[in-house]
Every structure is written in structure tokens, then in C-alpha cells.
């Protein structure tokens, strides 16, 4: 039962310490997510409502950042045209790890009304960057944004930091 064993399965054989540390780190990351808002269309209008007093997105510990270097997740809200797709990709690549993506609304989920005949629309932002949470709606309600945010927090809370190898082996 050496150190390596404990790294492999933290909750067994005296690995409580690492498990607790992992929980703490995940808690920190999930409770203070700064976001880069990429508003493109009508979902961004709903996003403003969500940031305003009635729904107050900051309750979840989020702070808007304008610089991608300081952001934890990027919120793509709206129709992703090819002109903007390149910029989204650049911004996503500029973000510091760990980074997440929330795709909001039908347009950025899968092209929305343009999925059949749009010559200029990217059919889903997941074709260029890996999306963590899809929020459906056209546009979604402000509460739906918050529900998506809670989904993202759940995902972060379940992330493995020390026992990555084990998870990769099982999944």
C-alpha cells in the first residue's frame, strides 16, 4: 500500500486526505466560476435579464471577465456564424485551463432555424470547441441559464484530479 496505490483509488486504503483535498479543490472551482460572455444574438438579451437584479447570476459566484485569460468558462449565446466561429475558437484557445463551455440556445446547440439551409451558420458550436453543458431554448428562460450553471457546477464537482487514471480505465 504505497503512495501510488492511494493515488489510484483515493477513497480506499487511507486515501481520505487526497480525496478531501480533491473535494476542496473542486469546491473552489465550482463555486467561483468567472465567465467570458460571448453574446451573439437574442440569447444574449435574455442573458442580460439573467444578470440583472431579478435573477442575479452572481448568486452562483460568477463574475463577468472580459479577458479570456481570467475566465473559467465561455458562454456562447446565439447564432454562431462562420465569421464569429473563428474568433470563438481563438478565444477558447486563449483561456487558461481548466476551462469549460456552455452553449446556450438552439442556434449554438445545433444551428437552430439555420440547421438546414444556412450557408453562413456553423451547425452547432460543438463542431469547433468541446461543449460541457447544452441549454435548450430559443431563447431559454433566465432560470434555465441558472439551471445550466448548476449542471456545470455538478460536473466540476465530480471531476477527478488525482485519480484520473482510474477513471480513464473504467470509462
Amino acid at each position, binding site marked *: 500500500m504505497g503512495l501510488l496505490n492511494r493515488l489510484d483509488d483515493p477513497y480506499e486504503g487511507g486515501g481520505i486526505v487526497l480525496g478531501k483535498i480533491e473535494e476542496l479543490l473542486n469546491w473552489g472551482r465550482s463555486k467561483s466560476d468567472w465567465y467570458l460572455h460571448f453574446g451573439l444574438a437574442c440569447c444574449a438579451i435574455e442573458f442580460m435579464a439573467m444578470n440583472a437584479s431579478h435573477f442575479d447570476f452572481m448568486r452562483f459566484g460568477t463574475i463577468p471577465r472580459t479577458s479570456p485569460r481570467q475566465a473559467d468558462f465561455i458562454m456562447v449565446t446565439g447564432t454562431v456564424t*462562420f*465569421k464569429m*466561429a*473563428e474568433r470563438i475558437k481563438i478565444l477558447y484557445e486563449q483561456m487558461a485551463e481548466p476551462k469549460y463551455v456552455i452553449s446556450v440556445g438552439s442556434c449554438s446547440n445545433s444551428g437552430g432555424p439555420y440547421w*438546414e439551409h444556412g*450557408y*453562413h451558420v*456553423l*451547425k452547432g458550436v460543438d*463542431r*469547433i470547441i468541446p461543449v460541457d453543458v447544452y441549454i435548450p431554448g430559443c431563447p431559454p428562460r433566465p432560470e434555465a441559464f441558472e439551471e445550466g450553471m448548476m449542471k456545470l457546477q455538478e460536473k466540476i464537482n465530480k471531476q477527478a484530479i488525482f485519480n484520473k487514471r482510474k477513471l480513464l480505465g473504467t470509462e
Partner: protein
Amino acid sequence: MLPGEIFTKLKNDFGDAIIELNESPNSDPWILVGADQLFDIFHTLRDADEFQFDYLMSLSGTDLGENLGVVYHLYSMTHRHKLVVKVEVPKGNPVVPTVERLWRTADWHEREAYDLIGVRFEGHQNLIRILLPYDWEGHPLQKDYVTPDSYHGMKIS
């Protein structure tokens, strides 16, 4: 002033450059003009005392199959009359003189018509794409436009 009167007056001045007057009951009456003397015609329409069309409401490009067309909607704030002017150019060489110097509104409208339909406005000082990326190929609102497979490695459709 009614479009019929404007048509006869213009016909006196420009002769063959004014091609036809269409007064169909289903649409606004419009005047079809030739592309050669377009700038002079519009200059007269804007500056002559009886016309005074000081406001270009809209400039739009159309694809008519064999030809490309440009539609101008004019309005006079002083005389309160309207006029629709159309011009048609062949698709192979779609060159129309610019009216950007007459109405500054036409600047972006002409860029948009160039971007999406492909009408080239001769004499426009900055005729570049306004909506699509600069390296886009083709003019997507033409009826025979074929959507490309990919753009910069991103699959379209």
C-alpha cells in the same frame, strides 16, 4: 408628383435611357432605366426643383435569373412623393454606377448588395464585403449559388 408625370419629364430629358413605366395595380409604380446614364438621372432626380428626392429609403439588389437588378426607393421630404427606380444589368458583367456620392446612405447599402448579390458598383470608394468574411467566395443570394462544402476547415451543413 405622380410617377407617370416624372416618367414623361425624365423621358424628355434622357430619351432612350428611360426604358419603361410599370403601373401595375399590384405594386408601387416603378420606372425601369438603363445603367449607362444612371448617375445623371439620379442627379437630376435629387437636385431638380420639381423632383427633389433628398432621401434614398432603400437600395436593394435582386437576382432576376438572367439579369441582376438594383431597386432604388426614393422619397422627397419637400414634395412628399415617392418613386421606385429599377435598373437591370446582365449577370456576366453586372456593373452599375454608384450613387454613393448623391446619398451617403447608399454606401453600406451598395456594399451589402455587392456582398450578397454581386452587383459591382462602379466608382464606389470602398466596395468590400460588409457582412460575410472578406475571403468568402461567391455571392450567396444569387439563385444559382451553390453552398460550398466547408469554410476554413469547418463543415457547412
